[in-house]
C-alpha cells in the first residue's frame, strides 16, 4: 500500500485523513510490514465506507484486511440511525454470520494421538463437507422458518446439543427481530438440505492442541491448559446467507437511488437504517445469523457424537461461538454518551472486553474468547477481548490470516495429494472432500497469521491467550 496519504498515529495505527466526500477518517490497524503487504484497494474501500451517511468515528480495517466486496475484508464501521445512518450489504458480507466455534475435549494430545486416524475417519463420515453435500436434516419451508427465528435454540430443541451451551454462543444462540418473511423463497429453497453442512472454501473442522499459553488467567477461565485438545469449526449461513446478500443487493441498490445515497461501488449499496428497505434487510440478516448459529450448533453436536464414539470418555464442551460477518445493534460510548449503533463487521470478530454485559458469567472478568484461524499447516490462536479494543474499534478484532496467493496460483503450484502428503509428514491429517480444494487451501497460500495476531495484540484490539497447533483437518 502507498503510505504517502497516511498519517501514523502509533506503531500499529494509521489514519487516512478525512478529505473530499469522507465524513470521518479511516483507520488501519497494521505495523509497517503488514501495511506494505496490504493492497491499495483497502484504502480505497475504507475511503468509500467513510463517505457513507451516519458513520460514527471512523472506517476501520483490521490487521488482516484485504480487498473485499464493498467493504474491505477486515472492515469495521458503526452507523447511527438517528443521524441518517445506513446498513450496507457489503458491510455484512455474503456469508452472513460466518464464524468459528471451539470446543475443549478434556483430554491431552498424547492420549488422543493413538486414536487420531480412527477419529478423523469417524469425523469425516459424520460431517457433510464439500460440493453438493447435504445433511441428514431436510426441512420444509415452515420448519426452516423456525430455524431462522430461533437459531441454535432450534438445534438444541431438536436434540443437537444441550441448553447449557447457549450461554457460550454469541447472542445466547438466537438473535431477536429475525423475520423469515423478509427472506426470499429461493434463499429458503437453497437452504432446506444444508443445515448441518460444512461447505467448502476456507471452511473447516480442525482438531488442534494448545501448544502455548500466553495468558494463564484467561486460559484458565476458558478451561485450557497446554497440550489440551480442542475442536474448532469454521462455517457460516451456507446458501441462505449468500442468497440474502444477492437479493438485497438489488433491493438496497434501488433504495440507495431512492434516498439519493451516492454509491461508489456496486456492493457498497445501502439504505437508511430507518427506511423500510433497511429495516427489512436487518430482519433478513438476523435470519442469516440464526441460520449460521443453528448450522454451527448442529455441526458441533455431530462432531461431539463422532468424538465420543471413538473416545467415550472425551468431553466436548463449547468454549464459545462467535461470528465475523455481521451487523449488530450495540450500545457504545461516544463522547461520554451511550449511543445505539449498528456495527458492521465484515471479516472482523466481535471482541468484547472484560465486564461486558453480553459475556457469560465465567468469562466476565477476562473478556470474550476470539478464535483466529491460521492455516491447516501452521497455527491458530485464541485471543480475548479488551477494554481498549472497545475504545479503538467498537470491540472488534481480526479474523484470520488472509490469503497471500490467489486460488488459481495455488492450484498451479500444488496438487491436492501433494498437500495431503506434505501435511502427513508434519504429522497433520487432512481429510479433503475435494483435491482441488486441498490445493487451493495449501498453507503457503496464506499470509503469516502470527504477524496479524501480534499486531492485534500490540494495538490493543485483543490479547493473546493461547497458540493452537493443528493435528487433523477436514476441508470441504
Amino acid at each position, binding site marked *: 500500500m502507498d503510505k504517502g496519504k497516511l498519517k501514523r498515529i502509533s506503531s500499529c495505527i494509521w489514519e487516512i485523513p478525512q478529505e473530499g466526500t469522507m465524513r470521518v477518517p479511516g483507520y488501519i490497524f497494521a505495523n509497517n510490514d503488514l501495511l506494505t503487504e496490504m493492497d491499495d484497494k483497502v484504502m480505497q474501500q475504507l475511503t468509500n465506507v467513510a463517505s457513507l451517511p451516519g458513520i460514527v468515528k471512523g472506517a476501520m480495517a483490521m490487521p488482516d484486511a484485504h480487498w473485499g466486496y464493498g467493504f474491505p475484508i477486515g472492515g469495521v464501521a458503526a452507523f447511527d440511525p438517528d443521524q441518517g445512518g445506513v446498513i450496507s450489504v457489503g458491510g455484512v458480507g455474503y456469508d452472513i454470520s460466518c464464524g468459528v466455534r471451539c470446543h475443549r475435549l478434556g483430554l491431552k494430545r498424547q492420549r488422543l494421538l493413538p486414536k487420531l486416524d480412527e477419529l478423523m475417519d469417524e469425523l469425516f463420515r459424520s460431517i457433510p463437507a464439500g460440493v*453438493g453435500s447435504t445433511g441428514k436434516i431436510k426441512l420444509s419451508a415452515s420448519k426452516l422458518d423456525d430455524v431462522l427465528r430461533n437459531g441454535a435454540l432450534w438445534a438444541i430443541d431438536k436434540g443437537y446439543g444441550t441448553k447449557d451451551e447457549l450461554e457460550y454462543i454469541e447472542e445466547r444462540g438466537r438473535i431477536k427481530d429475525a423475520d423469515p418473511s423478509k427472506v426470499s423463497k429461493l434463499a429458503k429453497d437453497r437452504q432446506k438440505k444444508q443445515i448441518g453442512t460444512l461447505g467448502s472454501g476456507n471452511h473447516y473442522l480442525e482438531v488442534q492442541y494448545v501448544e502455548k499459553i500466553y495468558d494463564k488467567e484467561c486460559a484458565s477461565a476458558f478451561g485450557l491448559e497446554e497440550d489440551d485438545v480442542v475442536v474448532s469449526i469454521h462455517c457460516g449461513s451456507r446458501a441462505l446467507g449468500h442468497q440474502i446478500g444477492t437479493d438485497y443487493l438489488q433491493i438496497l441498490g434501488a433504495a440507495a437511488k431512492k434516498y439519493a445515497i451516492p454509491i461508489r461501488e456496486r456492493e457498497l449499496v445501502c439504505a437508511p437504517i430507518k427506511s423500510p428497505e433497511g429495516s427489512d434487510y436487518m430482519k433478513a440478516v438476523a435470519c442469516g445469523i440464526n441460520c449460521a448459529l443453528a448450522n454451527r450448533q448442529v455441526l458441533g453436536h455431530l462432531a461431539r457424537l463422532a468424538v465420543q464414539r471413538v473416545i467415550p470418555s472425551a468431553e466436548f464442551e463449547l468454549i464459545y461461538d462467535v461470528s465475523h460477518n455481521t451487523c449488530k445493534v450495540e450500545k457504545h460510548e461516544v463522547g461520554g454518551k451511550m449511543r445505539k449503533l449498528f456495527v458492521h463487521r465484515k471479516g472482523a470478530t466481535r471482541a468484547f472486553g472484560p465486564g461486558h454485559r453480553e459475556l457469560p458469567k465465567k468469562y466476565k472478568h477476562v473478556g470474550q474468547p476470539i478464535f483466529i484461524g491460521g492455516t491447516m499447516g501452521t497455527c491458530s490462536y485464541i485471543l480475548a477481548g479488551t477494554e481498549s479494543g472497545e475504545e479503538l474499534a467498537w470491540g472488534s478484532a481480526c479474523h484470520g490470516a488472509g490469503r497471500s496467493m490467489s486460488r488459481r496460483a495455488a492450484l498451479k503450484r500444488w496438487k491436492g495429494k501433494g498437500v495431503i502428503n506434505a501435511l502427513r509428514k508434519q504429522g497433520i491429517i487432512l481429510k479433503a472432500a475435494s483435491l482441488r480444494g486441498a490445493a487451493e487451501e495449501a498453507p503457503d497460500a496464506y499470509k503469516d497469521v502470527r504477524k496479524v495476531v501480534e499486531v492485534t495484540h500490540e494495538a490493543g484490539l485483543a490479547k493473546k491467550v493461547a497458540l493452537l497447533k493443528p493435528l487433523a483437518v477436514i476441508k470441504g
Partner: protein
Amino acid sequence: MGQKEMANLKSGWETFDHIADIGIRGIGTTLEEAFENGARALFSLMVEDLSLVRPVHKKEVNCSSYDLTGLFVAWINSLIALADIEQMLFSSFSVTIDDHTLSGLAQGERWTRAIHQLGIEVKGATFTEAKVEFQDGVWIAQCVVDV
C-alpha cells in the same frame, strides 16, 4: 471449447485471479455465446472434468436485470441456485438475450461422487470485476464468484 489463454481467443472460457476468491470469464463471438461460456467456466470450478457431466436433464433459467453486467451476474447466480436446489451439475447451455432479459436452458445431471470428481463449492456471483463488453471483435462476460 474449453479453457484457453485470452490471446487470440474468439470463443471459450477461462478463470482469472482474485486474492480471496476466483474470477470466471466467458468469451464468444456473440453475447449469448459469452454468457454460455461463462456458465461453463462456473461449473469447471465445481467439477474436475466438465466433459464427464452428461446433458441428461434440461432445466429452464429465466432472469433479468437493469444492465448487461447485472444480467450476467443474475444468470450465474440463477445457475448456482439451480445446482444447489436440484443437486445437479450442468455442462451444456443455450441462452437468448432480449435487451436485459435472459431465457436459457441448462443441461446436466445429478451430482454422483462415483462419476464426478468434485471441485469447490461456489456460493454466489459478485459484482467484483464484473463486466460484459464487446472488445476486439469478441464479447466478454465475467465476474468474481465467492467460494
